[in-house]
């Protein structure tokens, strides 16, 4: 299909009446080159929708992750999310080589082996949440009561937050992601509370080191204490809602496709199929660069659409089918290139344990409302469910 002057499309396509991923993505993949589009605030950006092209963008050294560059796409702001001032240590917004110092210091904390060692603690966390849910009655909101607390508790234990403070930590992280139930001011206050708390944690670990991530990172000497607060906040933001939404969406998919309950391959297919971080890997060209035959000028914003890439017919057979047997790990749900999710193996383990324990403990789990009536976070940067009412 050739188009001499492709139309500028409005973006994002998400609205309550549009399923996710938006069917429009398939049309975009069929267009030559990249898709010129306009954000609600009028900014012009290039959409990247094919699997091959998304991987090319995310590994091109002429393309930057740094939001300080002119032309960086402001997708969050266009969705009403206030612009986060560049926090020291927020290294997803840095390019190599500045980025690498942070990444290298953190890698040992998230190796396959290290995550395997965390399994027993994660199992206990999930078990405790299930105990509390079962003790509270015969129904629950699986988002608020299960999906959100699990990654929050896992991260707080990873950071070395003392058990007495986990309730505080969890309540603030919950406010941060409740885009419908909390106001902008409440979310900003929660974010400040968490940053302040994390700053104090870094101070305390500096004085009284323990056997935890914060103490170890301080001991490396490669990250300054004021940067470390930003790093920890980033781990929290990157690892909380994304994991929670994958847990909730995966449970929903299993409830409607029960033949896959108990099959661990569900984890990888949930990551691909739902692609919750569709709008997370934003970029800007810092030099003129050609992508898929399209010249992108320095200073032009680029939006690689992870969900579009993960539903690309040329990379995944029958991409719109939920089929864990495809065992496809070449999806870009965790991004690609040097910024690919650092915590991906932790997420995989959290999802696997959450699904397995949930259906073991509550085999007669069912939806408490019709699936068609569920509210999706079309208004958030990360795709997910606002609520998932279940009963047993």
């Amino acid at each position: 299909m050739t188009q001499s002057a492709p139309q500028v499309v409005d973006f994002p396509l998400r609205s309550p009446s549009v399923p996710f991923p938006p069917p429009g993505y398939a049309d975009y993949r069929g267009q030559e080159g990249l898709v010129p589009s306009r954000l609600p605030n009028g900014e012009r950006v290039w959409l990247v929708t094919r699997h091959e092209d998304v991987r090319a963008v995310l590994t091109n050294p002429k393309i930057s992750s740094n939001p300080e560059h002119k032309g960086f796409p402001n997708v969050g702001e266009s969705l009403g999310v206030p612009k986060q001032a560049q926090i020291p240590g927020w290294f997803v917004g840095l390019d190599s080589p500045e980025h690498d110092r942070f990444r290298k210091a953190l890698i040992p904390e998230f190796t396959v082996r290290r995550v395997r060692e965390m399994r027993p603690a994660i199992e206990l966390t999930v078990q405790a949440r299930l105990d509390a849910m079962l003790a509270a009655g015969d129904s629950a909101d699986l988002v608020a009561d299960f999906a959100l607390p699990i990654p929050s508790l896992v991260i707080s234990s990873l950071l070395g937050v003392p058990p007495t403070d986990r309730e505080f930590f969890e309540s603030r992280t919950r406010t941060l992601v409740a885009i419908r139930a909390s106001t902008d001011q409440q979310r900003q206050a929660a974010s400040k509370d968490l940053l302040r708390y994390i700053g104090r944690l870094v101070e305390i670990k500096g004085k009284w080191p323990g056997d935890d991530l914060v103490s170890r990172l301080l001991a490396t000497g490669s990250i300054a204490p004021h940067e470390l607060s930003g790093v920890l906040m980033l781990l929290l933001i990157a690892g909380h809602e994304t994991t929670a939404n994958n847990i909730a969406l995966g449970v929903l998919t299993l409830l409607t496709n029960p033949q896959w309950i108990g099959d661990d391959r569900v984890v990888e297919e949930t990551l691909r199929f739902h692609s919750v971080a569709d709008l997370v890997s934003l970029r800007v060209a810092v030099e003129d660069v050609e992508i898929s035959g399209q010249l992108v000028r320095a200073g032009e914003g680029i939006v690689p659409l992870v969900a579009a890439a993960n539903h690309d017919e040329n990379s995944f057979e029958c991409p719109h089918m939920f089929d864990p047997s495809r065992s496809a790990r070449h999806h870009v749900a965790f991004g690609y290139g040097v910024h690919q999710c650092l915590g991906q193996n932790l997420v995989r383990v959290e999802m696997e344990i959450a699904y397995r324990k949930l259906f073991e403990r509550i085999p007669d789990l069912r939806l408490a409302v019709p699936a068609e009536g569920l509210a999706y976070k079309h208004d958030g940067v990360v795709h997910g469910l606002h609520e998932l009412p279940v009963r047993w």
Partner: protein
Amino acid sequence: MRITVDPDRCVGAGQCVLSAPEVFDQDEDGLVTLVGAGPGAAKESSVRLAGALCPSQAITVHED
């Protein structure tokens, strides 16, 4: 089949360890390292998959 790895490029995603743990490991810095008797220790398809999945091109699989 031969494999070369470049720990300087490695970003510690761990995809290789998940694909072919008989061949790839992460050292104490979490960076890619070769273990065992070489690529023959795992299925060739697993080794190729590890190379293809590596997000930072730290693994090169030579088909000679």
